[in-house]
């Protein structure tokens, strides 16, 4: 069955991130000036305006900052998933990522619960970073 949900629009800014996802790596820009790990990508640091960056690969572990449970499909591709959970995950390295929580029912999700990345290869060149409840206490900081 063909994939019928929206796909990310790849551009010069986000290309490195989505290429990383395809390799099952969460790649972020880390500021060489102040160490701030940022998302979304930008050509200079929002904290110190430094333009130099290095690549940081996140361990893919964080906590649910907040979440929302969709009971309406605004796009027909999601009708079969209702109810589904959209969340903002605060990664241990700092960035907040909008994503889905999978691997548990919506009513099991709570703010601040530990989660880990769960890669979903959706089409040939696109892999989505979703998150599931952390399987062990390992990596909790």
């Amino acid at each position, binding site marked *: 069955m063909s994939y019928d*949900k*929206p*796909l*990310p*629009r790849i551009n010069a800014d*986000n290309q490195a991130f989505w290429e990383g996802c395809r390799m099952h790596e969460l790649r972020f820009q880390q500021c060489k000036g102040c160490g701030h790990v940022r*998302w*979304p990508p930008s050509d200079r640091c929002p904290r110190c305006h430094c333009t130099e960056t290095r690549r940081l690969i996140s361990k893919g572990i964080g906590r649910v*900052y*907040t*979440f*929302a*449970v*969709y*009971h*309406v*499909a*605004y*796009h027909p*591709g*999601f009708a079969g*998933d209702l*109810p*589904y959970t*959209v969340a*903002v995950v*605060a990664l241990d390295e700092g960035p*907040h*990522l*909008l*994503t*889905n929580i999978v691997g548990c029912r*919506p009513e099991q999700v*709570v*703010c*601040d619960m530990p989660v880990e990345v769960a890669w979903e290869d959706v089409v040939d060149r696109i892999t*989505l970073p*979703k998150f599931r409840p952390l399987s062990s206490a390992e990596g909790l900081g």
Partner: protein
Amino acid sequence: MQHAVGVLESGLCRYVLISYGHNALSGDSMRRMLMELSGDDAVFGHFGATGGYALAARRAMHEFGTGPETWKKIAVGQRKWANLNPAAMMFGKPMTEADYDKARWVVEPLRLPDNCLITDGGRAIIVTSLERARDLKQPPAVIMGMGQDHPSTAVAQSDWMAGPTGARKAGETALAMAGIRLDEVDACEIYDCFTYTVEITLQDYGFFKPGEGRDWLQGGTIEPGGSMPVNTSGGQLSEAYFMGLTPIAEGAMQIMGRCGKRQLGPETRTKSPEIIMISDNGGILESHSCILLRRW
């Protein structure tokens, strides 16, 4: 509004018309605008405004213990005002707390009555100098203070969804310009895209401490007969959605005494308004404006 005052003060013009009109209900442009708002978040099934405010409201539940029990008082209270307003979309459609509890989820924790309406129609206001306003047919509502604050952080990057939002600084700025204290305000017209927006705005203005909104709202505080009437036309939840024009137009009309059965004062067993506090809000709590109007 601040731009209008600027061009009036600089002498560039004498009257400024601020208008809003939209066939948002019968057309599809509002829906398309909301869908485009989400960008690549659509990949994860995140769309429009309800999802964004649901994320903010959920974080607020976690941080200061608010929730549907608080928002219900706002939705039901504003519906009572709408039932005094024949122009309201929800006129003749009363809603009880039990109706609210039974309403379907849209994006949890927000139910259908936590969402504003989508409306065909419009509103307009005219801004001029007090000197010119003296000769007009209607008594003017006088701008006594204005404030803005725009944190501008996208909701997915925000770490202050549970406040303080831009309402804190915008409210303080407006009160300082007016030279009044919050307890001198007689009524509020709060931008109410969602019930949670009303709670966090009143909280950040300082009407109650974080999480104390539920108690503050008990006993019909914001309703007809209440001590701090809020959204006296029914607001965007129960009258009509015309962006920031819904609250500002109602605030001005109340000050002018042109509100019929919903008029603040003896008609609705409330205080006759000397000062009304009015808010506007943009994005997902990304920008905030506050205006204080007073009777002349």
